[in-house]
């Protein structure tokens, strides 16, 4: 198990990442704004899961259950976007067209 100090260190890292995501959002980086924001969020989630939720010290079975929720979420995203991203023309165009005049 972690020591009290290590927990505080992780907390400091989480707040540091919060500061980073806020500051970087104020810089124009094109498509990288989204990439960075999501990468930081994933890192923060990983830290919380591994240490605050003690996943790091869990058996393989717990890992399977942790991953199952995420994988199923990705299935939902992936197959829904398989529709939206392959519709002809830009997305808003399609949506508006169906609405009618």
């Amino acid at each position, binding site marked *: *198990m*972690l020591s*009290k100090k290590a*927990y*505080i260190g*992780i*907390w400091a890292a*989480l*707040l540091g990442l*919060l500061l980073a*995501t*806020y500051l970087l*959002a*104020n*810089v*124009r980086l094109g498509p990288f*704004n989204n990439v960075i*924001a*999501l990468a*930081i*969020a994933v890192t*923060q*989630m990983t830290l*919380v*899961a591994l*240490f*605050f*939720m003690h996943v790091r010290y869990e058996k393989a*079975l*717990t890992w399977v*259950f*942790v991953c*199952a*929720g*995420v994988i*199923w*979420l990705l299935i*939902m*995203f992936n197959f*829904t*976007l398989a529709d*939206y*991203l392959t519709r002809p023309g830009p*997305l*808003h165009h399609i*949506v508006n067209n169906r609405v009618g005049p």
Partner: protein
Amino acid sequence: MADAESALAEHFEELPQQRDAAKLGMWTFIATEVLFFGDLFMGYIVNRLAYPQAFALASHHTVVLFGTINTAILLTSGLTMALSIHAARADNLKLSGRFVLLTIALGLAFLAVKGLEYHEDFHEHLWPGSHFRPDLPAQAQIFWFLYWVMTGVHSVHVIAGVLVLCIIAWMIARGRFSAEYHTPLEMTGLYWAFVDVIWIYLYPLLYLINRYAAS
């Protein structure tokens, strides 16, 4: 002091088995919660892909200060929760109880800030419907609809977490837990961290879209 024997339900053979079952149950529940919120994230993704400009414009009207403070509050409450479990494992239940109370206080602080923010959003006519700000495009209403529903559902989870934490604090005060048995505290910790994780995603998705372009 806590009696580990009395905590064992009759259909289990031994305490570790019962604890493992509770933990597996909690993780299963969290997996369902991931998909519960995931549905909203799916709605967010599709609509943001369809209306990137409207979403960015709408996002600039969120109160980023409150959002950032709240993120910090929740991340800190994750720490106090973890420290509470840490203390319980070291059989320091007095300290553990104090950390639980601190977590409750942070949860309430989050809700208070959220309430102020809601108040301001409402005054800024960011409530979708006929009184929505006319200077924003129609699709901005989709963003704000998602904002209210996502943060609303999340707040309901925070409220539930605070209520459960109150019960946990009471159980600690009554001396129900020990270093060997404090499963309810651990399970609440998992739930609380999950609520934290949801907010970690809500923060950039709702408050930070193209923040650099905001005046």
